[in-house]
């Protein structure tokens, strides 16, 4: 390569970097503006629909009727805009190379504002993350960025949107790294910080410097008080677990209802929310003013306990019935109420002096966030950023750790991932994520496989099975598999005279599978569980078979690679 060519490439790269930096700032600004507009839209919708002092009838009618509208919009036009937005953003980053259609961002904005503004007990941060990420992704596509660069814009824009929505720029960066990317050492730290700062500057220049919460001065009055935070951690873990389990079960229940009800499910949730609002109007929408009251000693013990329960039920109903809105704010709300409750009880009954219950409400927010969202670092930074007080760190870390461990012990899959799994999307876990440069299922699998149609007889299946070397065959059609059957089982069925019985009678739908990005070590483990055939399926649609791995394909692959491990980019 000539010197002039090298110089050209060098200048080109430099210019690309400059453009990417400028793009990062602009995306930060636009994502921040979108988050601010979203906040304003929610507020405006609430005023418009509820007025200043709503009647009981309004409490019932507004969420019910508005959810009919949003139910229709979500079912017909924006199916990807349901729920929080954080898991969808994670899925887009990990499984879809950062591709989020602009339609999704628009749909999320519209339905999110209507759902939260009509009283559903949901948060604005999750939707803001998805809206911001959608904007980032759309702009990236407009610039024809490489897939890697496009992917990198998703956490950058998500951090910016969260920064503007929650007014904590540092916590937003940590959230993007911890939750969206899933790697605290990610190389995107610089871009995320730039976008986050740009967004928060925009937010503050529009909405002013008023903090979201009036955080009371924190005091740890006695070292023994740390024991009280252990109690808070346990309580936080239990409430987190109740929320996660309750939400997943309720969502499973709604998903199990007949398909034609899907369009009506948000309205069903809306009706229940309306009834709850009559008794507990405090659980309406985001509800940060009540979090503020709990932190500042403005709520009685009984009120905080009841609001904790009411918010838990209301958020589960709002989310599981398929409305658009997040669980970030509800987890903070629950934390403040649970923390405040523990704080008051400790203040009354602990055998040692304790600080104000408001401090417990503050730490409780982080505790529930760590237990529900499972982002303990974000939680610590968020509360620290709110208080700007080092004193809070040790109690916060103690309570967070306990809550996190309890939640993880009894709900091993994090809530966001569990929600995606209910949608047949399997997110890569930290332990199974592909290591750069290592061999993965994508490299090893063969795309040469056959599916036995589900309506086939066992006799017909035996013919198809005979054409392959594998010990098992997959049952399914159109690239979607529904089960697996071993050749031994087919043989036995034939000998027992069941040749004309449908193949589905002997197929099992409970078999191990792998995803294209998973590493060789994991594949060997999974293959050992399956009888001679491991389907490799899409993460975003777990019944879509992308290839299969058999012992033979493995041996063949290793023989081909005898020269040494795969090189990057090969």
């Amino acid at each position, binding site marked *: 390569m000539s010197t002039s060519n090298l110089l*050209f490439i060098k200048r*080109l790269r430099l*210019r*690309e970097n400059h*453009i990417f930096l*400028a*793009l990062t700032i*602009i995306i930060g*600004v*636009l994502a921040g*503006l979108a988050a*601010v*507009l979203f906040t*304003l839209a929610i*507020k*405006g919708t609430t*005023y418009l629909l509820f007025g*200043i002092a709503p009647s009981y009838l309004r409490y019932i009618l507004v969420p019910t009727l508005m959810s009919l509208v949003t139910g229709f919009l979500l079912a017909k036009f924006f199916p990807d805009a349901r729920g929080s937005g954080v898991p969808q953003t994670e899925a887009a980053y990990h499984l879809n190379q950062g591709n989020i259609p602009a339609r999704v961002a628009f749909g999320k904005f519209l339905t999110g504002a209507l759902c939260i503004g009509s009283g559903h007990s949901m948060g604005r941060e999750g939707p803001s993350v998805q809206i911001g990420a959608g904007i980032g992704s759309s*702009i990236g596509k*407009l*610039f*024809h960025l490489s897939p890697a660069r496009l992917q990198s814009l998703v956490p950058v824009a998500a951090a910016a949107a969260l920064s503007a929505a929650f007014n904590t720029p540092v916590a937003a960066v940590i959230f993007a790294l911890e939750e969206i990317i899933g790697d605290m050492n990610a190389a995107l730290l610089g871009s995320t910080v730039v976008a986050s700062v740009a967004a928060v500057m*925009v937010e503050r*220049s*529009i*909405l*002013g410097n*008023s903090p979201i919460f*009036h955080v*009371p*001065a924190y005091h740890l009055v006695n070292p023994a008080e740390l024991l009280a935070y252990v109690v808070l951690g346990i309580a936080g873990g239990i409430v987190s677990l109740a929320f996660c389990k309750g939400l997943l079960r309720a969502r499973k229940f709604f998903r199990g209802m007949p398909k034609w009800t899907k369009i009506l499910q948000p309205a069903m949730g809306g009706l229940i929310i309306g009834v709850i609002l009559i008794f507990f109007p405090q659980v309406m929408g985001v509800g940060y*003013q009540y979090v503020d*009251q709990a932190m*500042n*000693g*403005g709520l009685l013990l009984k009120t905080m306990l009841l609001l904790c329960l009411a918010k838990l039920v209301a958020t589960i109903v709002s989310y599981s019935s398929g409305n658009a809105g997040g669980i970030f704010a509800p987890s903070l709300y629950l934390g403040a109420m649970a923390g405040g409750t523990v704080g008051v009880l400790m203040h009354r009954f602990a055998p040692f002096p304790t600080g*104000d219950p*408001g401090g417990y409400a503050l730490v409780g927010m982080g505790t529930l966030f760590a237990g529900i969202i499972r982002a303990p670092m974000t939680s610590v930074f968020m509360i620290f950023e709110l208080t700007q007080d080092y004193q809070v760190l040790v109690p916060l870390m103690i309570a967070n750790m306990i809550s996190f461990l309890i939640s993880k012990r009894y709900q091993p899959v994090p809530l966001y991932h569990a929600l995606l799994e209910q949608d047949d999307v399997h997110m890569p876990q930290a332990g199974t994520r592909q290591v750069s440069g290592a061999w993965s299922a994508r490299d090893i699998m063969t795309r040469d496989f056959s599916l036995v149609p589900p309506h086939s007889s066992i006799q017909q299946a035996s013919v198809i099975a005979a054409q392959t070397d594998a010990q098992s065959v997959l049952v399914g059609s159109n690239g979607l598999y529904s089960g697996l059957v071993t050749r031994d089982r087919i043989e036995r069925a034939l000998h027992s005279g069941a040749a004309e019985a449908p193949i589905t009678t002997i197929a099992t739908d409970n078999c191990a599978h792998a995803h294209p990005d998973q590493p060789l070590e994991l594949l060997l483990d999974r293959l050992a569980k399956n009888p001679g055939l491991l389907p490799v399926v899409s993460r975003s649609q777990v019944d879509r078979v992308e290839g299969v791995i058999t012992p033979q394909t493995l041996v063949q692959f290793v023989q081909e690679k005898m020269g040494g491990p795969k090189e990057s980019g090969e």
Partner: protein
Amino acid sequence: MDEGGTYRVLNRQIFLLIALAVIAIGVFAFTRRVAAEEQQLDARIAAIWYKEGERQLGSGQIEKAIECFRKATTDALGDRTYTLALANALAAGDHDAEAEQTLLRLRESDPEDAGINLQLARLAAKRGDVPDAVRYYQNALYGRWTGSQVDERERQLRIELIRFLLGHQQRTMALSELLILETELPPSAAAHVEAARFFLEAGDTQHALKNYAEAVELDKNNVDALTEAGEAAFRLGDYQKADQYLKAALELNPAAQKTHQLLSVTEMVLSDDPLDQHLTDRERQERLLRGFEQARQRLESCLSQTSDGHGTAELVGLEDQALGLEPELHSKRPPDSELIRSGTELIYAIEKATSAACGEPQGLDQALLLIGQKHSGAQQ
């Protein structure tokens, strides 16, 4: 792609960046406008809630007022008037913890605001936290005051602080504040009487009398000032002044029984002191004998009451001394100064002992005790 093609792509990207920047500016302006309109709407709604809160507060519905002020502060974040109204309502509704947090937030942005410090002081006073209350009261006193009648409000605040300090037995601190208050008093008899009463409560009768005297100067017909000035002078042992004030008070309010009694004792102190200057020997002897006879009667009466009681031995000893001195006192020659001194001392000793054994003396006995106290104090 060749070099020219690559540059074309880059130039397109730069064009897109500029276009996006323009769009961002447009969206920013739009969002700002929407936010401003929403803030105006918020402000209008907040004003409605504030008025409603005031109305509820006026009708004694504190909890409802709190809810209204709370909504007002939610709709108009950071509005000091609404937040202060909320804090005051919270304090009135005994939601002290939240009231304090609300006030502390307000104080953060304006630590010198007298009104906020005053409310914090009252909350601290309510929970009996003397150091915090004093700190906030003083912050309020030396803080920034707004509105009219600042001097009068400051004075009232200092009075509130003094009352708090006296209520918590902080007499020294109260006296410091009283001395400042004294310099700020308006030319009003009532104000001086009030200050004098505080001085009395703080144990500084001298300053109390001074303020009573000033009150009398300002209003010669102020019965309270005259009566209490008389009492203060009496307490200080200045019986001449006490006599003047009490007589003046009785002229204005002849029915005051207590003042009559006090004046009577005062007059006896003035008329029965054998050590008084400018007396003839005869007058001095008569006073001494009158006092001696009265003291002996009191002693005998007391001895008959407390035959086996506490202090009987002391009383008997005093009776022996009295019996020993009696002949000398009754001799026809005028008593010398030594006899007068020892006689007066014996009278005082008898009145003191009988007072301890048989209760507070009345009438001439009380006067004799006071005469004795006066001279024993002078000697000391």
